[in-house]
């Protein structure tokens, strides 16, 4: 197996894709958004319960590839309990990581487990799979609705 493929499908990613965390509806959710990737049919519904300026609970439902599921699992774990500003900062950092060059250094300190998804950079066709959950989070926090990796939705 190639190094890039092993990097993409590393242990942590496979594990999160097979037993995703926070794959459930959220009781008392007050923010929600749906994200779709029309090119491949990945679909995620994200629910959050925001209390004050904190993410008190977050969960996702939907279907997708291993990368999009693992990313949703890791994302929900990362933002749970964070302030909205912190969640937004993570979104920015994650976005920067997956859109950087494949050989650019990755800051483990800022990203923690999320750094495991840096492997998608060697697979441009899969970057959208990794970022779908994050764009959906961004939409939910910005007021909800629907996002699409191909922008225009009806």
């Amino acid at each position: 197996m190639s190094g890039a493929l092993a990097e993409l499908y590393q242990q942590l990613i496979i594990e999160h894709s097979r037993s995703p965390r926070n794959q459930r509806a959220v009781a008392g959710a007050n923010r929600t958004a749906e994200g779709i990737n029309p090119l491949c049919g990945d679909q995620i519904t994200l629910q959050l319960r925001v209390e004050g300026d904190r993410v008190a609970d977050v969960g996702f439902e939907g279907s997708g590839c291993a990368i999009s599921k693992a990313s949703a699992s890791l994302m929900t774990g990362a933002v749970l309990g964070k302030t909205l500003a912190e969640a937004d900062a993570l979104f920015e950092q994650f976005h920067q990581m997956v859109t950087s060059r494949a050989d650019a250094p990755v800051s483990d300190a800022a990203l923690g487990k999320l750094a495991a998804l840096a492997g998608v950079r060697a697979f441009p066709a899969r970057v959208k799979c990794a970022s779908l959950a994050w764009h959906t989070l961004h939409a939910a926090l910005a007021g909800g609705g629907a996002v699409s990796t191909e922008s225009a939705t009806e």
Partner: protein
Amino acid sequence: MLDATRVREDFPILATGSDGRRLIYLDNAATTQKPRRVIDAVRQYYESSNANVHRGAYALAVRATELYEAARERVAGFVGAWGPESVVFTRGTTEAINLVATSWGRAHVRAGDSVVVTAMDHHSNLIPWQLLCREREATLRMVGVTPEGAIDQDDLRSALARGPRLVAFPFVSNALGTINPAAELVRMAHEVGAAVLIDGAQAAPHLPVDLQALDCDFFAFSGHKMLGPMGSGGLVAKPALLDAMPPYQGGGEMIAQVWDDRATWNRIPHKFEAGTPNVAAAVGLMAAMDYLDGLGRGAVAAHESALARGAIDRLGELDGVRVFGPRGDRSGVVSFVFGGIHPHDLATIVDQDGVCIRAGHHCAQPLMRRLGVPATARASFYVYNDVSDIDVLIGALRKAAALFRVSV
């Protein structure tokens, strides 16, 4: 079977690389690779015959026009059309169907009418009819698909009972590999007075097609799926229908006389070819049809169908494979899911072994919903594939299983 090793020598992109590997291209339902003969025809056209068509009085323009019209005649012969005037060149299937939905559709479909499509239609044979029916306040009726991947005949009969204006269906399904009984479907639709459009995108490349015998009204196809250049393809229609249809796009070439506030139309098929056409693509398509006839179209169909059956048998050796579509007679398209591994992950992983397969909804979301899967993996075979390609695919799938720790 065709001698695929020999065939591959005609396709530069499939040559073995310096690393001893070659491309295992199994996404032929999306587009096919091009033989040297087609690439050369396009190059030669630009090197020695390029001029705008139907306009110049000089010899070069005459030559370009003759080539373009020869390609039209070649298409007519290739699909058994009613004559060259029944062939309108378009960018491909999608544009051909949009032409019919817009021009014929607006002239014939009124409020309360119905248009019939099937649940196995490609989005390009669905959305144009959705748009038309919305605009006209007509009903779009989608006929179901049986668990074996055939058009549900009972459901079709009930849809026909309503007396639809038009019935549209794919000759061959790009997502299931089903070969529909086109002649019989045409007859059923005509019995209730409906016009018939056949999406031939997956038929023209793979089966002998005789439109006069089929008796359909409209037939759409894409040249790039049959070894021809991107941007080649067309609508083939009964001349009397084309003659009565209003223009689709306006511009040069499609007119007879123009005044300040009105115009009259050129004769068919030129009435439907506004603007400068893709002459090089038509010339390349002609070379592609020559190449396919050289192989023999019956031989092509038999080759693909043998590979598809072989692939289905080999996939059956793996635990946890579900193959969609008919078991018996089928085209070279094999759609499957495997071991709970998402098709996208499969496609990325087998790509590491040089295997190109498609993952996704194959532009058939209503069908995916009925199959109960968000996506499938799809291997589709053509003239340059052989059983060694299937071996590599199966080997690559085993690697994917190992990576995801799925037991096979």
